[in-house]
């Protein structure tokens, strides 16, 4: 019996929140900036952390939140206050998540290429190595390379410039470019030595 007494109160609270949100959405539809700010305060941070989980970049997650809310503001005329804002927000955010995910993977593809060159993946490392930490480690190691090695590595792997052309640009011989490249990969390999990467193994499955 007591359950029946509690339930209506919860229902009532939920309704109250829904009514408050409905009012906010109607105000937004009429161009009320304050209502827009309130909705942002309610959902902006949550969307940011959701996007960050998938995009793994603060800049991208911020950019996404900006685009999504800007779109909500621009399309405020078409807003239906009777539908759930949470669901509407997701509908818009989903497209941007796909778009940003694809874009950032294209831009960061060279990280994976460099890792593949520096580490021989076995079944074990393929499944048990914390790849996110590995990516972060590689990024740090690249930043720490001597500037000439870093410049040549990025030209070759990030921008895909042929060795001959890098040589021409820098006014050095193709052989020297290759040596710098080998040296850079060797430095990365050393930085990712066996002991160093064993720290990154997961032990949860064993």
């Amino acid at each position: 019996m007591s359950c029946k007494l509690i339930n209506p109160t919860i229902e009532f609270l939920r309704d109250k929140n829904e009514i408050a949100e409905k009012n906010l959405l109607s105000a937004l539809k009429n161009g009320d900036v304050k209502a827009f700010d309130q909705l942002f305060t309610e959902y902006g941070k949550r969307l940011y952390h959701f996007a960050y989980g998938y995009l793994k970049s603060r800049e991208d997650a911020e950019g996404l939140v900006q685009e999504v809310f800007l779109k909500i503001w621009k399309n405020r005329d078409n807003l239906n206050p009777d539908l759930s804002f949470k669901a509407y927000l997701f509908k818009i955010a989903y497209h941007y998540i796909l778009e940003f995910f694809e874009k950032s993977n294209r831009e960061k593809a060279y990280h994976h290429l460099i890792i593949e060159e520096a580490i021989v993946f076995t079944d074990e490392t393929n499944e048990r190595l914390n790849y996110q930490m590995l990516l972060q480690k590689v990024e740090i190691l690249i930043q720490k390379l001597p500037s000439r090695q870093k410049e040549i590595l990025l030209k070759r792997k990030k921008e895909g410039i042929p060795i001959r052309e890098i040589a021409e640009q820098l006014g050095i011989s193709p052989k020297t470019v290759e040596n710098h490249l080998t040296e850079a990969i060797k430095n990365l390999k050393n930085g990712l030595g066996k002991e160093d990467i064993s720290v990154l193994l997961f032990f949860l499955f064993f």
Partner: protein
Amino acid sequence: MDFNPEILYRFFKGEYSRKDFLTIKSVFEKPELKEELKTLLQNHWSDFNNEPLPKGNVDHILRKIHHQIQPEDNQVKSNRFITAFQRIAAILIIPLILTFLAVFYFQTKSPTVEVAFAEIQCPMGVRTKFVLPDGTTGFLNSGSTLEYPVIFTNGRNVTLKGEAYFDVKHDEDHPFTVNTQNLTTRVLGTQFNVIAYENENSEEIILKEGKVEVYSNRGEKLEILQPNQKLVLNTQTRQYNKNQVEAYQYVSWTEGKLVFRNESMQQVANRLGRWYNAEIEIRDPELLKYAFRATFIDEPIEEVLKLLAKTAPLNYKEQIRETTKDNTYAKRKFTVSLDRKRLDAF
């Protein structure tokens, strides 16, 4: 789809293997899995709404959004403001203001000291070094104009059209401000580069050393820049972004170097045009997707174009120079077009 949602959650939390990553990547990239992925993410989103969030706030994102929606918003407001009542009030108050102004004007006819302004104009194809009255030095790039008061009385304010590099003399009591069409940059003493050409739809501030504050022309504070950061404002959408850059690339023009770092064909054409006082026309829109990376020192324009043609499938041709009415030659003009025969080689 034989895809375990657990992988998605592992990825989300940042505890994933390389195998997990490759699976996620292929799921995100396959159009046929789009609907299923959407359902998965949708469920995740509704669960995520009940989870506690870390500390911190995202107010700065809201500020950025406000900056973008404000111009439109102001319009809406001003339309609504003019109610019938206000119209009547305005009609009543106009004669009052006019009378007041007239009285004020006749009473203050005594001579006032006017602040004199000086202007440095840098012609096309040339770079100019300047020294301002307070000891600030810098360079003005091709086709730019810098206006400054002859005596720095109330603060140190200069106005720039085009591109300039400033090495500001440190003076904590008198901030140095650079006004461009859309931005105001405020500094105490630093080295930085400003790009604000009127015919391009972006303005850029690049900081080499020290600290600068960037404001919009409406006085809102946008960002504080640290060394090696760049702020880009898109003057069309009013969207702005802060990125990490290598500042030396942006100031190398002061040493006579022409540096392109991943710059689009359009940017390259604009910069070459200003640098050499020439006109460069891009014939094929397909060329716009190419980006360039190069450094030139003291090369004639033909040599630069020749080298660019080696790194992208393009041809260039110099047009016959027209003579103007007074029998002098007009600007040199080059056309750049797509070389379809070499398209496969790139």
